[in-house]
């Protein structure tokens, strides 16, 4: 699919050469006139978001389609890695702000090696890297700081020191993608430790303050489009900010 711009309401013609098609965010069957169930006519798919049409190969020859748009407001989705701030603490767990419309619940036992007696003691205001365990529109989202199948922390849990930067959800998705060259280029000049949350927040820690500030300004520059996401532009920006 050439990267064409789609507006909400545009109908999307899917190449039906694939066995199964997975509709990602931004696409939905237009509900106004669903064909009668008996007829085999495929309900017409429309876009519900502004963005560029994107597709990728899914598992077993299925094709994934979604609309790649820019947005700042996070809507919790299962299995997302997110950065949250603890805003309240009560008996059995914590309430964590993810920047979405409802606060998330973090159970006191959802940590590696936590038992009824030895629960981690986190203060209000702590930054937590976690995974969305449960998210649907009618319930408050639940997050956990362990990887369910390994039971290990896998980097989840409290993050100490460092700095948090807010940026668009789109940039966070790309930062997690290994083929996106911004982070590798930065790593060449500045050694840093980083945690990218899909809710539009990026945490990182470097040795010196000026390196962290340079990193922050590069990320915000790429997000606002001032710095092009290519090796040359990023290197120039880093040198300039570090000077």
């Amino acid at each position, binding site marked *: 699919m050439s990267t064409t711009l789609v507006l909400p309401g545009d109908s999307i013609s899917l190449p039906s050469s694939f066995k199964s098609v997975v509709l990602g965010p931004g696409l939905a069957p237009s509900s106004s006139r669903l064909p009668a169930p008996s007829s085999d006519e495929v309900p017409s798919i429309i876009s519900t978001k502004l963005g560029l049409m994107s597709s990728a190969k899914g598992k077993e020859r299925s094709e994934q389609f979604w609309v790649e748009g820019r947005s700042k407001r996070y809507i919790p989705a299962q299995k997302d890695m997110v950065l949250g*701030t603890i*805003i309240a603490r009560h008996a059995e767990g914590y309430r964590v*702000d993810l920047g979405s419309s409802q606060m998330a619940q973090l159970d006191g036992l959802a940590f590696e090696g936590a038992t009824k007696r030895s629960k981690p003691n986190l*203060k209000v*205001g*702590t*930054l937590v890297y976690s995974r969305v365990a449960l998210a649907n529109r009618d319930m408050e989202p639940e997050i956990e700081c362990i990887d369910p199948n390994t039971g290990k922390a896998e980097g989840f849990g409290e*993050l*100490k*020191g*460092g*700095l*948090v930067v807010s940026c668009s959800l789109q940039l966070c998705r790309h930062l997690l993608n290994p083929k996106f060259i911004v982070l590798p280029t930065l790593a060449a000049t500045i050694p840093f430790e980083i945690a990218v949350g899909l809710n539009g927040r990026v945490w990182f820690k470097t040795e010196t*303050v*000026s390196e*962290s*500030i340079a990193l*922050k*300004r590069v990320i915000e520059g790429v997000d606002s489009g001032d710095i092009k996401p290519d090796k040359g532009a990023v290197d120039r920006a880093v040198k300039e*900010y570090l000077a």
Partner: protein
Amino acid sequence: MVREIDPPSIQKEFLLAALAEGKRLDGRIPLEQRKIEFVFGEELGNVECRLGKTAVLAQVTASIVKPRDDRPYEGFLLINSEIGPMASSVYENGRSSDSEILITRLLEKSIRRTEAIDREALCILAGGKVWQLRLTLHFLSDSGNLLDCASLASMMALKHFRKPDVEVIGDEVIIHSPEERAPVPLAMHHTPLCLTFAYFENLSPILDPTHLESTLCSGTLTVTMNAQREICVLSKAGGTPLSVEEIMGVVRVGVDKVRDMVKIMDEALEKDRENRVVEVR
């Protein structure tokens, strides 16, 4: 609507560490202001001022009204500075939060009570007709320091505004249209501008705090000064206690900062005047 949620505690630790080294998160030095930009609207007296990412729109309109009996020579200047949810979802339409009251009161003091506008010059016919100026402020985006941005936008709008030329014969008042006679600028004594400093425990103060810096600071001090080295308003409400020298240090910094800002304003006005034919609409 949504209560402002405090940033994670590591942000404050990092901010204090950075300030200890005299660096701020957006690369500025402590006493450096963000970039000031003015966008002039279609009509005279309509200006949008951007201070970094903070944006405020100011609009001046005039109308003719009857003066107060005990002050027959004085015109009026009404300031409407209500912060709506567009600036940030923290502000609500009806209720005014503490910060909104502080901003409204400080603007009121800086512009009206320091007689920035010569109110006697607004008189058309003593006891009969005077000009009533209405300055409406719209807070478009609150990325920290709405007050300085609003005061810049207000003063620029008042300098940019022209009211029709008026002629009085006996008790008849003749309003001339822009086509016949060039509209007249407002008579202004001086240009008071607000400067807001933010304080952190025992670190040197920073000028023009961003939204994050003003949430994490332990106190702010706002001083309104004009180019004639006069302090028009000073407001330090609580926060870290300061010694006399610290306050004087900050006020001296304010003096030459105000002079630079007035220069930026005049240049912007000059540029706008060139590509706008003021006389004939």
